[in-house]
């Protein structure tokens, strides 16, 4: 039964989503929703939406309470008085939030609308396919585990009534072998698109926590978007200072090394990962590199060579985000700019602070690749 409250509830949710969409830019640049991410849902704190009335403010307000305590003792910031039980102005200020659950898919849609992201045209669409079983038919034979109870019962009931075996006083139905029906399946072939994301991050001493926070927020949105575009996503993480290694997500965001920087070491690992696991014919490969732009001078040449020869030709997109750091020189982006014009799939972006995340995401994902 459809209840009338569902109509009001869905209207309310619509209004809330509208509010989230309005303020998406704020949510994009602040990392608050990352910690609230579940499997398919993100819960976002949205300021409560209510109908304004003339109400008393906090100033000069008070109330009555019950319990122990000396005069002058603080008793808290005042509870909300939702149903008007009568304490004047005991509402807390602006701290009233409502948790709103939004699916990642919906979030990706909002992001796409806000940033005007084009849909990605995956490569290798025709080459990769997967087979799936769909249970859409009914069969006379099959394993007992697939027996269709309702249909079997109906059939048995019909037979019993037709053959006049049905006893209204004692309505027992015993299905015979002939009554049994089973669910049957068809195998369908579907094109499948998979993507691999490789994150490369500089964790040398010059990358501070603030810079990592930016990377983390940006990666969250990149993941959200790409997940909405592909059937399957593999995400790999590589960190480097003078040497590089592949790590898990947790380590990726929380490691801090000291020492020099050799970007080519990370490229080497990325190259290996691609060669081993992701053949470019079958996978859409994305590389996102974050660094403060400091590199060991002699290394730049090696880096460019590796990029041009091995990595760029196999990637859908290679994005380099240079996070501004008080310590970094930021020279690496200048090196990349030299080859920028030759490669359509190389995207460069400088991220000054959290506010810059918005434009950076737009630059990275706006290519539609």
């Amino acid at each position, binding site marked *: *039964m459809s*209840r*009338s*409250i569902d*109509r*009001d*509830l*869905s*209207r*309310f*949710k619509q*209004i809330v989503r509208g509010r989230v969409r309005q303020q998406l830019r704020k949510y994009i640049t602040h990392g608050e929703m990352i910690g609230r991410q579940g499997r398919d849902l993100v819960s976002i704190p949205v300021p409560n*939406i*209510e*109908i*304004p*009335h*003339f*109400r*008393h*403010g*906090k*100033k*000069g*307000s*008070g*109330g*009555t*309470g*019950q*319990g*122990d*305590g*000396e*005069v*002058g*003792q*603080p*008793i*808290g*910031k*005042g*509870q909300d*008085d939702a149903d*008007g*039980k*009568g*304490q*004047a*102005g*005991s509402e807390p200020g602006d701290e009233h939030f*409502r*948790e709103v659950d939004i699916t990642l898919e919906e979030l990706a849609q909002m992001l796409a609308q806000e940033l005007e992201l084009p849909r990605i045209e995956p490569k290798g669409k025709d080459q990769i396919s997967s087979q799936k079983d769909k249970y859409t038919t009914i069969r006379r034979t099959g394993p007992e585990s697939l027996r269709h109870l309702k249909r079997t019962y109906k059939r048995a009931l019909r037979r019993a009534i037709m053959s006049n075996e049905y006893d209204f006083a004692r309505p027992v139905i015993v299905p015979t072998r002939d009554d049994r029906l089973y669910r049957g399946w068809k195998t369908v072939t579907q094109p499948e698109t998979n993507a691999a994301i490789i994150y490369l991050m500089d964790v040398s001493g010059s990358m501070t926590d603030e810079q990592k926070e930016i990377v983390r927020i940006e990666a969250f949105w990149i993941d959200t978007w790409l997940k909405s575009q592909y059937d399957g996503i593999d995400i790999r993480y590589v960190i480097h200072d003078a040497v590089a290694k592949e790590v898990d997500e947790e380590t990726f965001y929380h490691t801090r090394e000291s020492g020099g920087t050799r970007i080519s070491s990370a490229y080497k690992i990325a190259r290996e990962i691609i060669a081993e696991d992701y053949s470019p014919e079958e996978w859409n490969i994305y590389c996102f590199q974050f660094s403060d732009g400091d590199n060991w001078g002699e290394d730049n040449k090696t880096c460019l060579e590796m990029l041009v020869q091995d990595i760029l030709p196999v990637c859908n997109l290679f994005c380099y985000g240079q996070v501004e750091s008080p310590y970094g020189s930021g020279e690496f982006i200048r090196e990349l700019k030299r080859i920028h014009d030759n490669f359509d799939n190389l995207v460069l972006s400088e991220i000054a602070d959290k506010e810059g995340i918005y434009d950076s995401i737009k630059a990275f994902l706006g290519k539609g690749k």
Partner: protein
Amino acid sequence: MFTTSTHRPLPAELAAVQDEMEARAKDYGLDFFKTIFEVLDYEELSMFAAYGGFPVRYPHWRFGAEYDELMKGYSYGLQKIYEMVINTDPCFAYLLSCNAITDQKLVIAHVYGHCDFFKNNAWFSHTNRKMLDQMANHAARMSRYIDRYGFEEVETFVDACLSVEDLIDMHSPHIRRREPEQRAAASALEGKWTEDEPRVTRFKSKDYMDAYINPPDVLEAEVRACEEKEKERERLRSFPETPQRDVLLFLLEHAPLKDWQHDVLSIVRDEAYYFAPQGQTKIMNEGWASYWHSKIMTRHGVTDADIIDYADHHSGTMATSRNRLNPYKLGIELLKDIEERWNKGQFGPEWERCTDIREKLRWDKQLGLGRQKIFEVRRVHNDVTFIDNFLTPEFCIKQNLFEYRFNESTNYYEIASREFRAIKTQLLNGLTNHGRPFIYVKDGNYKNRGELYLWHQFEGIELRMDYANDTLENLGRLWRRPVHIETMIDDKPHVLSFDGSSHEVQEVKKI
């Protein structure tokens, strides 16, 4: 719709409990309309609760918001509604299906307390006991407007109406303040926005016949009559002779509303008046119902098997908190206190004059008037008069009551006093007008420009500014001309204004 879609007969076990509780309640002299119980699951109960107890309401998102909150509170284990009862004849009461049988007993006894209160308390005497039908009727009318004028259009307007829904005169159902004005005056007014010229009856004619067919003196007379009417309108638009509490009524009579808008506003106002007495008698109503569930349960209802569950449930209901008074607790304790005092004869001039504390403690004239007295109290009082008449210094000490205030320098609420006077004043302040600001219409033709001027009667607490500005915007949507409200900011009178596009705050210079 209601009876066909949700009505289910009560399970036999509960029907037996109902019969027992009803008989007990009647034995004690409780007097109620026929009460119909329904068992609902939590989703249904939350839906009814979001709808203020009614199965059918007009479509509006705030019900959905309320429902969302109730369901979340329940699934996080923060709150649970055991029961709901609405003020109608017959009374409808909803029970939560997953309540244990002990809870059901308690709740059913509790419901009979509410039913008796609804029927007998004077403040409910003017409420519509057929509100179930009325609500469904409102919903039907609202749906019709939505179909005709569009969902968003109606929703925006309802939002604006709800923003001022509490600006009513809660005492007006009991007093006839003045003759109701005719809506005709308001609809005549509406014309003014569309016509610039006074309308005269000019018949079609050839030039040479014009002077005969449309005689100039008749036309002139007509123009004069129009001008008279215009003046009359001006007079009607102008301020009420005394500031008027019922802002909604003033809007209904004078705001330039289309017919459907007028109807929507009157729906909102009707419902506000229907719910108002429940806010006015929260402490008494809950106290009264709790008094009777505890009396009936402890004397008759509880078996050995029930006692732990009963005690757990009852104490949960009575739990006190330091930053909020529990109306159940305050109500039941005060009723019990009154019963004891009237049983022992602790009232009247003799008692008031006595200053000897020991004598007062021993005081017992064995009058046995307690029960009779609390029945009288439930008949005539509302929360304000209840506290005003029966709160005593001894009671405050016994109940450990205190007054707290907001301390601006620490941004915390702090215990301010345990003095009887202070506590009582604070309690009464919080209860009068639900602890909301008093707002009056002072002028409907402010500056002779048809602007609306409201006045906040300052009682020591300032308005919350962000809310006040948003509310003014909504009010402007109804009045369609600039709106103002006079209030105090930092002990100086200020006027907040909204002219359709921007807000303004100005200090009032006293001349």
